[in-house]
């Protein structure tokens, strides 16, 4: 199944070079893939994943292993960032 995988700020280096400016790729993942599976498979250091959103909704680190992704969902990840 296909999902949209988005990486921002310093994590964009884990995307293919041609996809970095838009921060996203379409990703083919196995049915039943979890957030943790995608993070591991894409080689993103879990310790750098501070904000993890599925369709804009926060997924706590304790739920990455159990949160199963569905077709068409967007997984977006940021390193530790803040503003104001």
């Amino acid at each position, binding site marked *: 199944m296909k999902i949209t995988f*988005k990486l*921002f*700020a*310093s994590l*964009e280096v884990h995307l293919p070079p041609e996809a970095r*400016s*838009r*921060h996203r790729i379409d990703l083919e993942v196995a049915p039943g893939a979890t957030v943790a599976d995608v993070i591991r498979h894409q080689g993103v250091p879990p310790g*750098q994943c*501070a*904000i993890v*959103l599925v*369709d*804009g*909704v*926060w997924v*706590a680190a304790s739920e990455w292993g159990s949160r199963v992704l569905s077709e068409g969902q*967007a997984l*977006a990840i*940021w*390193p*530790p*960032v*803040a*503003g*104001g």
Partner: protein
Amino acid sequence: MAWTKNVLRVNLEAGTCTTEPLNLQWAQDYLGQRGLATKYLVSEIDPKIDPFSPKNKLIFVTGPLTGTMAATGGRYSVVTKGPLTGAIACSNSGGYFGAEMKFAGWDMVIFEGASPKPVYLLINDGKAELVDASHLWGKTVWETEEIIKTQHQDPQIRVASIGRAGENRVLYAAIVNDLHRAAGRSGVGAVMGSKNLKAVAVRGTRTDAYHLADPEAFFAATEAGKKVLAANGVTGQGLPTYGTQVLMNVINELGALPTRNHRDVQFEGAHDISGEAMHEKRPTDGKANLVTNGACFGCTIACGRISRMDPGHFSVKDKPQYHGASGGVEYEAAWALGAANGVNDLEALTYANFLCNEDGFDPITFGATVGAAMELYEMGVLTEKEVGFKLPFGSTEAMVKLAELTAKGEGFGKIMGLGSKRLCTKYGHPELSMTVKSQEFPAYDGRALQGMGLAYATNNRGACHLRGYMVSPEVLGIPVKMEPQATEGKPAMLKAFQDLTAVVDSAGICLFTTFAWGLSDIQPQIQAACEGDWSEERLLLVGERIWNLEREFNLAAGFTAKDDNLPPRLMKEPAKTGPQKGAVSKLGVMLPEYYQLRGWTPEGVPTTETRKRLGV
């Protein structure tokens, strides 16, 4: 003690500068900066006066940690009755001006009256004098700073000044120091203009300006604090690299990015104006908008953005004065100049931000007012004839033109200078002003983030994100994660944030430290700097006292619980898209609990018991 114990009182009408001792009892009760100056202001002016009356006072104030080795210890504030809101106004700035004021030996400068002619205050350590500023009137902030430094043959003089916006009493005029750091909100620059005070120029060289209570403990505490900031992902890496602007995509994904005067909560052009985009090479000239990051005095975070525009961009094509590197857009400015009115041209936003710095006006209120004007235009209420040009949402040219007109005080820029509340009221639609207490919202939708909605409604200086940053728990998970739409626990969390923020704003350090520091990191620094008992418990009591004193001022000025409200759009019009789709503000659920936690009556008035407990 980390206070200099000296107050400079400047009577602009009489042209006199006198020294008086700092009220040390008040310093013990209110710490410094925001709290201490508020105590002085509340004690010296009638809350009901016209903010532009000579009876209003304007206070420049530092904190006990300003000008010390504490990380980010370079802050100062300007406190007055604000013309945009009619409420207490306290605007906080970084840069190097605050530390210089402390090195000259002053905790506070109180301006009273109004000068019969334009003047600036020149401080050279213990010597202070008012100097004729006729030749500076009509000049921009950038010109003023350069002329003063040249005139006195001292490039190290630090200058805080107003541009043409402050002179023209734009109701959201800022006071700008060090070219692009600003006491930006609530119109403190317009009060300065009303007093014919063009600038404050200060040179401080004293090594005995203040004395730390326990130097050895202070060095240990500040060193420990710096290590915490360096090791933290946000303050050690995220903010230096991407600045606050990195939030643009986060808040958009979350469906909390107010767009086109809050008609929408997501902006299709968010990426184009984001922190990441500032790093990317432009197709036009192959260079990135961002040149480097910058730091204020004593700061080990360095979140500031220094940008250089594409010299071929239409807005600056024939204006070489804007081709050099200068203060770039931070998140709030990029949002207000961009998403709030549907503009996705990063170069245009940078230009408008340069103008805000150059002539001293708040990009948040300005940008939000552009959004309101564009909505009125699209409704047909505001016409091309009145404005002088077309004004649809998303028009880069119109946003740029309005920034130029507002800076100069020309044409429709005069009306823009009133802010959105007065603009929308003038054209019969006050409900379209996205404000609380007449001050415009910053860059987070109060429906999408329920805690931020409550923070806006209860803020003593009108809508603002810097008095109780509920984005931390609702978006970033700091210190704990709270769901955006939840209401449970939010009033208590907000009260804790508001009280802690009042402490930070009164200490002389930057609020951004609190992404890494808790009160347990801050307390040892204050304790070692200041004599007396500064336990965590006492500091929070000081914060609560400051919050209540500000509230008392506003109540005496005529504000009531009815002003702790949000515009009908946030209360009734559901968010249209994204994960917060369908959301409206649940302010009515949270506000009574908030009042109760504050020890206020259901009408929002501190009870006798609360007043007694806090000594307000």
